[in-house]
């Protein structure tokens, strides 16, 4: 059984805004969501990179305590976007709880904020804090906390896939959700990812010399994907969710078809866990095209992973050039948000959906002088009108995990 899979609702909380209007406005105005790193009283003083893709606006959560008690900050993002998507979908409560809707959702760590509180108990005066580790701390911090807080809040009884593969967490969730629906295991999947404000992630990448450090006084000027003066990634936060549905069912109930997922690939480099791998990435892009049964010339836009690390952008450019030449326009959307880690795949997919829907392409922010080693691509030259039919969303993670999602404009899919 092979069925068509469509996206019928989406929502994202990002460093450049929450919801389509705000996010599109930031993309069109060239507004960065990168801000100075907040002092956490623990690691910040030791970190060289002082920038972060920050969600610094209030969000009106309306969760009851019975739901909040098992949620760390990461689950707040996850449940909020999941709630938005379910409301927008118009799906009946009967369907949501029928077992035919599943959840594929993840985060990089679970909740590092809650984990940090647990460790504080250990490293402070244990005798006085014997009961400080709460009964729900595990539920708030465990690696599948986003997925199961969503199922709990909305009574979802279908399959649960809790991805946790760093930067490919949410793109894997969408890809695995797509396969669930495509092959008839579920009729719909709520997919996405979230990651909360976390300085430990910054510290890790900082130690690996992968973080941006040259723009601490001018945060909005970094990251700089493909730029000659790029100096590394900027960690960020946020959440995003999409609803995948079987096409015929979505059409029957009159759901808006935002896009069709036409292809997905996921592979591993089979070796080094950190270094980008040209062969592995190139293979992913080919596999996705094969899955979609389309030619490279059919793709007219690429949302590149493009973290702005020195080596990563070059390897990705080589892979894109090898598969696509200089046909599709290419944008590194992390230039707006920073690298939102586990949620980057879904956020970049949603940004791409918005651009498809509103007929424009945003350029890579801070791309002032293209690195000659990345210059063989067709970089989106500036904010431009564009009718995108098929787009590729690419993400690559520590651990050598690569993903590629191919989506077709909803107007074309109907």
């Amino acid at each position: 059984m092979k069925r068509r899979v469509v996206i019928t609702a989406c929502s994202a909380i990002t460093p450049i805004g929450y919801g389509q209007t705000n996010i599109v406005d930031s993309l069109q105005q060239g507004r960065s969501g990168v801000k100075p790193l907040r002092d956490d009283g623990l690691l910040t003083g030791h970190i060289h990179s002082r920038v972060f893709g920050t969600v610094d606006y209030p969000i009106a959560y309306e969760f009851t305590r019975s739901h909040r008690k098992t949620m760390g900050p990461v689950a707040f993002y996850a449940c909020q976007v999941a709630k938005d998507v379910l409301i927008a979908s118009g799906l009946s409560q009967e369907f949501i709880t029928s077992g035919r809707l599943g959840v594929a959702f993840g985060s990089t760590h679970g909740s590092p904020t809650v984990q940090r509180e647990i460790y504080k108990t250990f490293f402070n005066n244990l005798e006085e804090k014997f009961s400080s580790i709460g009964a729900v701390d595990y539920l708030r911090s465990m690696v599948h906390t986003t997925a199961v807080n969503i199922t709990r809040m909305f009574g979802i009884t279908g399959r649960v896939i809790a991805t946790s593969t760093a930067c490919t967490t949410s793109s894997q969730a969408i890809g695995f959700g797509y396969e669930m629906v495509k092959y008839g295991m579920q009729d719909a999947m709520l997919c996405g990812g979230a990651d909360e404000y976390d300085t430990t992630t910054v510290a890790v990448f900082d130690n690996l010399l992968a973080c941006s450090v040259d723009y601490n006084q001018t945060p909005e000027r970094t990251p700089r994907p493909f730029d000659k003066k790029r100096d590394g990634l900027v960690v960020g936060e946020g959440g995003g969710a999409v609803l995948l549905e079987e096409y015929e069912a979505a059409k029957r109930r009159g759901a808006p078809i935002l896009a069709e997922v036409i292809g997905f690939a996921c592979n591993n480099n089979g070796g080094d866990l950190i270094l980008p791998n040209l062969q592995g990435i190139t293979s992913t892009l080919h596999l996705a095209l094969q899955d979609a049964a389309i030619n490279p010339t059919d793709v007219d836009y690429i949302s590149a992973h493009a973290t702005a690390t020195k080596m990563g952008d070059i390897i990705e450019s080589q892979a894109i050039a090898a598969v696509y030449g200089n046909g599709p326009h290419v944008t590194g959307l992390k230039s707006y948000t920073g690298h939102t880690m586990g949620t980057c795949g879904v956020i970049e997919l949603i940004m791409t959906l918005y651009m498809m829907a509103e007929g424009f392409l945003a350029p890579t922010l801070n791309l002032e002088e293209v690195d000659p080693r990345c210059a063989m691509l067709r970089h989106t030259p500036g904010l431009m009108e564009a009718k995108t039919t098929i787009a590729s969303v690419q993400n690559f993670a520590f651990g050598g995990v690569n993903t590629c999602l191919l989506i077709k404009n909803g107007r074309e899919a109907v």
Partner: protein
Amino acid sequence: MTRDILQEKILTILVQDFEFQQPGLDDNLRDVHGFDSIDAIELLGKIEIMLGCSLTREEKEKAMEIRTINDILDYLEKIQQGRVR
């Protein structure tokens, strides 16, 4: 601690940490306030901090029979008496 002091402290915890609205001493905790087994474990942790001592496994298992705030107060008085002996 006297029962009155225990009652005041427990009511404060239930209102502040568990967001109880107008708790009655004989309200069924689950039916009226949605207090579940996770909450019960969480409350025991707060009780340990309040009393300044750890509860034994047996004492904690005994707490699972609690249904009302008055049950909590009876339970705490027994714990205190046991500690004094």
